[in-house]
């Protein structure tokens, strides 16, 4: 359950970040770190496999883009399927968290 939990978190996070605009891997890693105020620092070792998995699933799509004077970078954008899946993912996630909370409280009482 532990790895699944982590995986679920990261997926929602990645999808949410890509919702606004396409980003490359390094940017995503930085943003997660920044937005969670350092609490959710996770390793590149988890990020890239996650990106590849999401890409295989068809939720995100990576493309090499070259900007003037810079080396090419792989930008990931949310696909239609990913965009469609996101609200459900968020909702499930919230439900899951709530369930965990309930269980945790019962354990306390």
């Amino acid at each position: 359950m532990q790895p699944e939990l982590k995986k679920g978190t990261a997926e929602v996070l990645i999808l949410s970040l890509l919702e606004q605009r396409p980003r490359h891997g390094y940017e995503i890693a930085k943003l997660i770190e920044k937005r969670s105020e350092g609490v959710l620092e996770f390793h590149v070792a988890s990020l890239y496999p996650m990106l590849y998995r999401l890409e295989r699933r068809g939720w995100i799509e990576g493309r090499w883009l070259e900007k003037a004077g810079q080396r090419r970078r792989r930008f990931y954008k949310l696909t239609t399927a990913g965009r469609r899946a996101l609200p459900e993912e968020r909702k499930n996630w919230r439900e899951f968290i709530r369930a965990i909370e309930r269980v945790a409280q019962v354990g306390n009482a």
Partner: protein
Amino acid sequence: MREGKPIDWKQYVRQRLPALGLSGAREQEIVEELAQQLDGAYSEALARGESVAEAEGRAAAQIPNWASLALEIRRAEQPLAEKIAATVPENWREAMREENLRKRRGGNMFADLFQDVQYALRMLRKSPGFAALVVLTLALGIGANSTIFSVINGVLLRPLPYSEPEQLVRVLESNPRKGWPTFSVSPPNFLDWRAQAHSFAGLAATENNAYTYTGGDVPERWTGPQVTEGFFETLRVQPELGRLFIPDEFQAGKNHVVVISDALWHSAFAGDPAAIGRSVSLDGQSYTVIGVMGPSFRFPNPATQVWAPLAFSPNELQNARGAHFLGDIARLGPGVSVAQAQSEMAAIAERLEKQYPVSNSGWTVAIVPLSEGGGVAQIRPALLVLLGAVGFVLLIACANAANMLLARATVRHREIAIRLALGAGRARVVRQLLTESVVLSFAGAALGLLIAFWSTRVIAALPPRFLPRAQMVSVDGRVLFFTLALALVTGILFGLAPALTLGREDLAGALKDGGRAGAARGGLRKLLVVAEVMLAFVLLSGAGLLVRSFTHLTSVDLGLQTAGRYAFDLSAPQTRYPTPQKQLEFFNQVQQRVAALPGVDSSALVSLIPISGDDEMYEVALAGQPSSESNPSALSYRVTPGFLRTMGIRLLAGRDFTTADDLTAPHVCIINDVFARAMFPGRDPIGQKIQFGHQFNIVREIVGVAGYVNQYGPAEEKSLQVYEPFAQFPRTDMSVILRTSGSGAGLAAAARVAVREVDPQQAVIGFRSFDELVSESVSLPRFRTVLLGLFAGLAALLAAAGLYGVMSYTVTQQTQEIGIRMALGAQPSQILRLIVSRGMGLVAAGVALGLAGALILTRVMQSFTAFLFGVKPNDPVTLVGVTILFALVAATACWLPAWRASRVDPLVALRYE
């Protein structure tokens, strides 16, 4: 940015990242992307003012464990691993959704069902290819069943379109002594029955008739019965327009009124209500149209166009007790059973037999429910065999569908294990899986109904000689219900085994296993294939026997030539041609004109067309012997000279008729060889004298012996035949035969012109080729042969598909084994042989069982009359042929996956998980 020692991060990554086993280009991409990540961290650290060494440390810390990263990437990139990984969070979601739904709906049965169906639809949407394949397989099976059930429903089950149809019967004469179970009725007997019987609420006779109508552009033939009083009342039908006959109109002289069919009303009067009261010229006499029937009323047969009152002549009433030509219809009185009516009528017949021994001895009465008439009794066994056949097809389709579900179980079992782990009951999971299969079978049924809709439309258009009551065949409520019930049973049947195996899923094992579970499932799949092969083999054997029977049937020597021969019917109505001499002249003129038509090599007249299935039979006796019930009967043909030559009938001895054999010459006749052998064994029949039924007192001298000619079709018993000169026995209805060496195109039109030149009032009726006549005579055997062949072919195809599926699956399972064998030096041809022989083992088991089944089932088939012709049920040619055919089809189905396996790269195969 401060200058640092430039580091090639790609090189750095490449040195540390273990091989991913992906395509080169993809590996490069990943390396590049990871390098950028490290470079980013490094550059950022430098930018913050950290030292090069510190920055390098930051970058290195990004990836603490290269081996585990490589593993993670490999899992993400490899589709199979991805699929299994993806099902896990997906199933968390499904499970949670399900829990919520249950809470909201309060967990009652319908809510559960609804939810199961929803879930099933979701699962199927996820694998549309699989769903489409299963639905198509089931649609073929269910469609075939719905079609045959529609036919059985229309022909055997559906009530006739009359009020209280179960009361309607035909009361027919019967002469068991002569082997005639039912026979036409003579007018005096009919009137005695009607006067004496109490079993019936109504009893009316019909006499078939046809008229030449001369009111239109060209003379037309109208057919329909003359009917006695009470006919419409017995059937309880009312006219759509106008009125029916009043009692007065059944008296001679007042009976020139007709009621017409809806179809005729539209074709001849354009549906004009003013047709009522219109006067029409039939056979040159004036009749008044008084009524139009509704479109569904076509009694006694679908071709009926017109009804007229029947008034018996005094001669018919006094002397015609032995003349059987009436049909009839009766309605049983309230509460009277067929058996009760039968016993009353038997008693009446017995009284009449004593009263009129000459005409009535040996005659009794047979009561036949109307629903059994018109060839329905003959077609029943064929339909039941076909129902059995489509049942087999559906079973095979079920086995295939079950096989596909089992194959999918490999993918599904992890999902199921998770559901079980989350606390779903096993019964609940089995129910869910069954719901999925039932949803699939309902989709198949929907598609199958479309097939049935289409095919019943084709069948409903078949002529009645092909299939009686064909017009009653359609997809109605009963067929819908049958199909739905069938879909439900089918869904449970093919879903049960996979559902039970999956529901028994071992939780721990399933979660560990990467998808190679289920040796038990493999065994079940093989069993299903053996069953499929067996069923298909039985069907193919049955179809093979029918095909062989049919080829025997069509290669029977009919005793005449059909190529280039045509025939049409022609009348010389008494009203226009009152004397035999005039009738003779009319027909001879027509024949001469037809013979002179371009392309016509020869022509002749005949009173009864050979192989038409019609008959005209009279008793025969040696000259001087009295008329007797024990005398044999012979078919009667009145012909013109040259008829035998025109038809290609062999003249075995003596001479043909000549123009000298006319009214003034001594009466002569030609008999067939069957007659000669029966009546003159060991003697020369030429010069012998006989007496013949239609004018028994006249003694005829035999002048020739002809070869036997088929009258009813190839499967008939051989009957006695007598030819007489038309010139010595003229009549009002004849057929014209022509032979052409050309194509026959335009011949009908030319014949019409020729007839019109002689008498513009007479119509050319039913112009047809002898090839058509022969083809019609075997229409019932062809009907069942074609349909059974079609279903057997379908069954074989489905079984081959099933075999192919199992072989493909097995080969996939054995990829690793194959890889090892090939790595150890096995040749592709050896692998091929190995795989094919494993598949053929299954086929051999199926064929062995099928052979046993075929021997039993074809014996059943033989017990139906006239099903097999010229072959025994254990016909070795058929069984060996079907076995070889099956072996070839099965070998192909095994060979394809085996061939693919033999081309596997050993390295890939070894790595295959």
